């Protein structure tokens, strides 16, 4: 689990166990991820956090990730069947889409609701049906209820609509002719209703609605302060075009970006498929470009933030694939382009397979960011091994001490432990406990507490739980210590199972 996933899991625990969610405008985004997790938890009859596992949590982003593919269906009348199929293909084989569809964070939900707004908005403009404007309203409300950065996506959508609207006016088409002021009211009212419902925790916490707007101030203030996640302007482009850590494979989204580039060009050309609406393609192109520009300018960057404009590139890739296959007149050229596209597609599939399998927590993976490494599992096994051998089991007292409370995602893995304390620094007033996990920076303070503050004769000896260098994530070492008397019991049990030696009772003596 990633730190963010584990934090969200604990926020969900509050809702699951106490039926309570309180939106925090300073951090952690909107409530939709938490509320939607109730559904798989209820279906799996999970009542407390210790019942919940990674499957329950990750079913939510998986559902919305798959939903992104299904959302293409209503656009058959806008993109054409071919583009819908190829876009579905590129969505499914896209490495970041697959990767973050298994991450218990808000990103895939946000992209889903953003795309749902585009789909519903387009269908409304084409048909005038109230159901579509309501769908658009709910999608917009859910966008706001998911991430505060919805304003960026809305701004990009509005700006991308302008050239389309100008062209409509120039060509005097019938699209959108049924748009009335009341539709604006329906849209804004519906969006506000859905957003308010979630932020007020379904009317139990009305202050959450105000907090949802207060959040914009927080994020605005933060944007002017440097952050540990500030990256250069080309960060997203490097992630997409060429990502290489020495000693690791090279990763690139070029197999998808090539057809996306062709899709960009074809947005201004002709399509042989009469079902393809070029204005929709141009809208997607403008929206993608504007959103990419916005996120490029903002110094704060994390890899999952690019999913919004990346999804636009995926749609363009679908467009470009069809354009390449259908746009060439000669049969031989079409065969060559089909083979070329198959090579690109299979490269993308292989890359996605590796990035989501063998390299899913490797620091060389471009989509891995502050991810817990495999040595974390060693920490968990060591502590659980101790718990399994003592009478207290998961009630054995444990302390975890890491500066700035950066011990996540350990709280998730130790959720079954009933007497575990989490500290940002050594608490010299707390009595020493049998098992201590500590960051090296706090070790001198821990030694002071254990060996100099305690009176002589009351100082327990602590031995390492493991000898190897062990990390929570790259660059964050964690050390484990256990009171000597506990490990002796374990060693004795292990010895007993391997050797035939006299036990404590009775000790047999030779005659």
């Amino acid at each position, binding site marked *: 689990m990633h730190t963010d996933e584990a934090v969200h899991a604990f926020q969900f625990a509050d809702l699951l166990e106490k039926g309570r969610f309180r939106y925090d405008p300073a951090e952690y985004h909107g409530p939709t991820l938490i509320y939607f997790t109730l559904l798989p938890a209820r279906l799996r009859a999970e009542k407390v956090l210790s019942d919940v596992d990674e499957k329950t949590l990750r079913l939510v982003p998986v559902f919305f990730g798959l939903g992104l593919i299904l959302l293409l269906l209503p656009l058959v009348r806008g993109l054409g069947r071919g583009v819908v199929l190829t876009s579905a293909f590129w969505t499914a084989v896209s490495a970041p889409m697959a990767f973050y569809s298994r991450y218990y964070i808000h990103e895939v939900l946000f992209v889903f609701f953003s795309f749902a707004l585009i789909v519903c908005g387009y269908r409304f403009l084409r048909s005038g049906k109230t159901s579509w404007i309501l769908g658009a309203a709910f999608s917009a409300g859910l966008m706001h209820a998911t991430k505060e950065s919805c304003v960026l996506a809305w701004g990009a959508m509005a700006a991308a609509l302008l050239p389309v609207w100008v062209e409509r006016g120039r060509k005097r088409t019938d699209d959108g002719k049924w748009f009335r002021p009341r539709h604006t009211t329906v849209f804004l009212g519906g969006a506000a209703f859905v957003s308010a419902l979630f932020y007020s925790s379904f009317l139990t916490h009305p202050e959450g609605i105000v907090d949802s707007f207060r959040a914009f101030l927080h994020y605005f203030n933060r944007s002017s302060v440097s952050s540990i996640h500030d990256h250069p302007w080309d960060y997203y482009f490097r992630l997409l075009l060429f990502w290489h*850590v020495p000693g690791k494979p090279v990763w690139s989204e070029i197999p998808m970006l090539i057809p996306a580039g062709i899709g960009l060009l074809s947005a201004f050309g002709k399509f042989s498929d009469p079902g393809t609406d070029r204005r929709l393609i141009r809208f997607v192109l403008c929206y993608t470009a504007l959103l990419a520009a916005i996120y490029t300018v903002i110094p704060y960057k994390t890899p999952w933030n690019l999913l919004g404009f990346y999804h636009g590139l995926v749609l363009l890739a679908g467009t470009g694939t069809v354009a390449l296959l259908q746009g060439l007149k000669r049969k031989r050229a079409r065969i060559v382009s089909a083979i070329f596209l198959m090579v690109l597609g299979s490269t993308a599939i292989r890359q996605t397979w590796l990035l989501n399998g063998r390299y899913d927590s490797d620091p060389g993976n471009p989509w891995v960011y502050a991810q817990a490494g495999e040595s974390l599992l060693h920490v968990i096994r060591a502590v659980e091994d101790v718990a399994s051998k003592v009478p207290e089991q998961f009630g054995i007292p444990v302390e975890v001490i890491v500066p700035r409370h950066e011990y996540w995602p350990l709280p998730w893995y130790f959720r079954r432990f009933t*007497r575990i304390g989490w500290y940002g620094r050594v608490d010299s007033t707390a009595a020493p406990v049998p098992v201590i996990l500590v960051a090296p920076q706090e070790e001198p303070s821990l030694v002071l507490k254990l*060996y100099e503050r305690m009176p002589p004769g009351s100082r*327990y*000896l602590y031995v390492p739980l493991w000898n190897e260098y062990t990390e929570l994530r790259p*660059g964050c070492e964690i050390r484990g210590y256990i009171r000597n008397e506990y490990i002796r019991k374990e060693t004795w049990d292990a010895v007993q199972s391997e050797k035939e*030696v*006299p036990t404590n009772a009775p000790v047999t003596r030779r005659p």
Partner: protein
Amino acid sequence: MLIQSVQIKKHHSKFVLFILFFGLFAACGLIAQSETLKPIDIKLPKPMFIGTPQNINVPNLEKPLGKARPPFLAPAGTRNVAFKKPVTGSDTAPVIGELSMVTDGDKEASDGSYVELGPFQQWVAIDLQSVNTLYAVVVWHYHKQPVVYYDVIVQVSDDPKFQKNVTTVFNNDHDNTAKLGAGKDKNYVETSEGRLIDTKGVQARFVRLYSNGNTGNDLNHYVEVEVYGKPVQ
């Protein structure tokens, strides 16, 4: 007489009042003390939420500690204060080796690295030559084969005769054969890692180790004894 008796009665009543008051005060003190001795139900702090941590992704980053960690956590400056210190024993003429081998730093179980003491209960004692705060004692009996030594008792004291101020830090003599008190520690199989004994930071100058034969024979052996501590300032 009456005045005297009244005065006596006054004094007596004052005395009684004083005793009562003192008793009441003492009782309050006792109650308060017993209240402070009651185990407190400590609420352990819950994990604090944080944002996405920093991504540290430096290529070819060398791990800072490539070797095994020390055998136990201890303050800086803790060292083997028994190294090369004088050793005495219950057997002044060991059959094999010399008592000085107990603190010579050689932990191998090969010939020439261990001292063999006579049968049944024997002891060795190390004079640390100053009072030290002791964190751990590590003892190696003969460990080339998996044997168990009986009635292993480790005591520390500031008295070279171990008659007063004696603290027992390890005792697996469960039936009090050694007449030093029954112990609750378990028997253990000798290994090359030695037996790590927690001395809980007790302060002492002398360390004495007892044993009473082993599963192979009645004899007693020591390869090495290390005492980890820091001199008391």
